[in-house]
């Protein structure tokens, strides 16, 4: 059984690069190269992490210090008032529910559709299979453009409509390719045996394909959840009703305000007026950073757990090319 298990998932091997490093004599030049590699990679890793770290320490530091940009490495005057204040912002709770709602519903539908379509496109006999598969894949490379898309959405009455967040992303070509590749790599006999036992297409899908495809479906789920959570453009184009604002959109408005405010200050830059504006901005800086943390938190929390998982997923896709 255990042998069978591994052969079901031929592509999900552990990424282990060590086996590729053949032992060679270490010369002085090699040592220098190694050192440079270590330094460069450490530096880049620092650049990748520091922005997140610095925002976190700023949100819990004394607001006047963080507004002056003085919190660099360690938090000073630790407090959590910003987080309490942020939860009192009107509309933020609603935006959170919108973002959460579209992420949960959108992800469920996308995963379901990707699994089903990936499975169906792996079937040998389907009327016009080749055509419909191309019909699906071509949309990855070709689109009408954002304004025609916007006009279509408007004519379908999908502006200021929650469904606009969900429906366009249900059929996702890339995820379908991932599932199709995965299903095609599983032994045909499983499906054939079930079919001989009288199982219909839905039974095969539900009882056989869904359970064995769990790893790839988890990958699809994470990707699609991240996409939904991060989505900003659809709110920007399609939504004017503040009840449907997503968290990303609220955050953008905050920074945009702050950014134009700081432009004004820079333009005037005549001591007293600048100071006056700065006074009103002190809260806005830390509140903005706190909202940022709230928007990025779900990803930061999920990321370490699933990172290895979706790296495997993308490699399965890469094997297909």
């Amino acid at each position, binding site marked *: 059984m255990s042998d069978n298990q591994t052969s079901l998932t031929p592509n999900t091997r552990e990424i282990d690069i060590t086996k590729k490093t053949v032992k060679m004599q270490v010369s002085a030049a090699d040592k220098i190269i190694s050192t440079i590699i270590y330094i460069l990679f450490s530096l880049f890793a620092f650049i990748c992490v520091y922005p997140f770290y610095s925002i976190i320490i700023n949100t819990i530091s004394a607001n006047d210090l963080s507004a002056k940009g003085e919190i660099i490495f360690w938090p000073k005057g630790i407090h959590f008032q910003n987080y309490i204040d942020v939860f009192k912002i009107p509309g933020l709770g609603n935006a959170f529910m919108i973002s959460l709602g579209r992420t949960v519903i959108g992800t469920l539908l996308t995963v379901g559709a990707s699994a089903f379509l990936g499975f169906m496109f792996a079937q040998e006999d389907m*009327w016009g299979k080749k055509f419909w598969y191309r019909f699906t894949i071509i949309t990855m490379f070709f689109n009408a453009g954002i304004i025609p898309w916007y006009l*279509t959405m408007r004519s379908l009455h999908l502006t200021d409509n929650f469904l606009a967040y969900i429906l366009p992303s249900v059929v996702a070509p890339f995820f379908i390719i991932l599932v199709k590749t995965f299903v095609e790599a599983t032994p045909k006999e499983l499906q054939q045996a079930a079919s001989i036992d009288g199982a219909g297409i839905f039974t095969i899908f539900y009882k056989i394909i869904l359970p064995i495809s769990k790893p790839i479906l988890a990958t699809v789920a994470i990707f699609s959840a991240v996409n939904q959570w991060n989505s900003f453009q659809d709110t920007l184009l399609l939504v004017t009703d503040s009840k449907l604002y997503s968290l990303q959109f609220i955050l*953008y408005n905050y920074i945009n305000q702050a950014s134009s405010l700081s432009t004004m200050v820079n333009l005037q830059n005549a001591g007293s007026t600048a100071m006056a504006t700065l006074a009103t901005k002190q809260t806005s800086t830390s509140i903005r950073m706190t909202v940022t943390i709230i*928007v990025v938190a779900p990803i930061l929390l999920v990321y370490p757990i699933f990172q290895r998982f979706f790296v495997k997923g993308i490699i399965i896709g890469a094997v297909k090319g």
Partner: protein
Amino acid sequence: MRSQSMRSNSFRKFLYISPFMLLLAVFAYYPLYGWVYAFFDYTPPIPLSQSEFVGFKWFHSLVENQVKIDQLMQVIWNTFGISGLGILFSWLPMIFAIFLTEIKAVRFRKFIQTVTTLPNFISWVLVYSLAFSMFSSEGMVNGFLHMTGLTDSPTMFLQSSEHVWWTMWAWATWKSLGWSAILYIAAIMGIDESLYEAAYVDGATRMQVIRHVVLPSMMPTYFVLLMLQIASFLNNGLEQYFVFQNAFNKDTIQVLDLYVYNLAMGGGSYSVSVAISMLKSVISVVLLFSVNGLSKMLRGEGIV
């Protein structure tokens, strides 16, 4: 009799997927119909049916006087510049992957890989928020420069119109470098072990192994990705440039997608922006097919 039941079975399978194909038709293919707006004098809220058919007027209007030509040329120049920088440095993820796999300390390597792929998972709005917190006039970088006494007045990193292409390239690279390297890491793991051993027996140094074993094995992957990148030369996307645009950098940051958006949503010129959208999509498809043809010619297989 039997073959007929098989045929009806195969049609039934199509029926199961037909609702999804309908969704695709509506959201990916039906918008193409929106291209007709480019041929009408359309101003909302007057419906298209009552708008006047104007033929190629809007396409002409793009180049009707020097001011408009200059504007469009600047936008195309920006698009080419920013995409060009991306292509110029398209080898970076490959080099990143090669040297990452050279690291022998497993924990360190896994740590680097985990950490450098993280930025790929945040939105451009969040990237901009980070950028603003770090580089605005009251941001940490200016705070640090002020504290250490390196500068007296804050430097306007985000409001500068100079180096916009480079900063946009830098943020895009920051966001995607670690992630793009994963495909190459997969390719490196596919390299036949015996090639390494042969090189080792021949007394090759580490750099020689990289040059003669690793790099050649990566070329197919690099080539496919490069072709895809060239095919989407005009599609820089909207979000990154939208969030980073401001009154100061507008001239150098407007790529085609942003220009189209600003024309329609800012200026209400739907017909003109649809005309540009349309030209852009057509050119993109031509690019894709040329690159695909080129790939078939050079490597014997297409990329699409």
